[in-house]
């Protein structure tokens, strides 16, 4: 399951990951922080995410299938929020369900690492005094 949504519901994620064969579920949630490394002095007031929707969904599904195949996952989910987000709100959630925990952690990290590399989604940060498109950080 891959989705672009207005608001992320974390309950929904666990429903999508439920699988009686799975013993371990690892979920990563990225949230809006109130500070950014690019402006240590300033407070982020909110963020806006924009996506090239159809291509973003295609890239998310590609990453998801790679992870399922590589780690033999039972379930994998990638959900990204678009539009305006405030501090503390979830902006991305990735999760996997596997038979054992040793696959769950690297598989979950792979989903978020690859998403950040290739999925065409862009973040604009708004401060009290300015705004800018974010350059990716490793």
């Amino acid at each position: 399951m891959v989705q672009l949504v207005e608001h992320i519901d974390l309950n929904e994620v666990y429903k999508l990951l439920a699988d009686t064969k799975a013993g371990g579920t690892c979920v990563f949630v990225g949230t809006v922080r109130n500070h950014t490394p690019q402006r240590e002095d300033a407070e982020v007031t909110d963020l806006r995410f924009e996506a090239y929707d159809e291509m973003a969904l295609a890239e998310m599904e590609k990453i998801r299938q790679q992870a399922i195949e590589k780690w033999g996952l039972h379930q994998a989910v990638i959900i990204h929020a678009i539009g305006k987000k405030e501090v503390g709100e979830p902006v991305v959630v990735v999760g996997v369900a596997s038979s054992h925990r040793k696959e769950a952690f690297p598989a979950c990290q792979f989903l978020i690492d690859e998403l950040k590399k290739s999925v065409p989604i862009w973040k604009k940060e708004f401060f009290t005094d300015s705004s800018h498109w974010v350059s990716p950080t490793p």
Partner: protein
Amino acid sequence: MIVVKAFGHVKEVLGSELEVNRELIDVKSLRDYLGNEYPTIVWSTVAIAVNKKYVQDPDPISPGDEIALIPPVSGG
């Protein structure tokens, strides 16, 4: 004529859809055209997608292709 979608900071310079009235046979010729017309953008950091897939300079462009300019992504 081809239509090129733009996103992020590139969109703020080119608009969300740019019409190019040239015959462009491959990704390289599109890059050369954009580099001449919009020299303020650092094009080496901008990826190009054709029909929702990342492509490289030698890849061809055909009439009717969906072309997009992808500045460094910052999702997540």
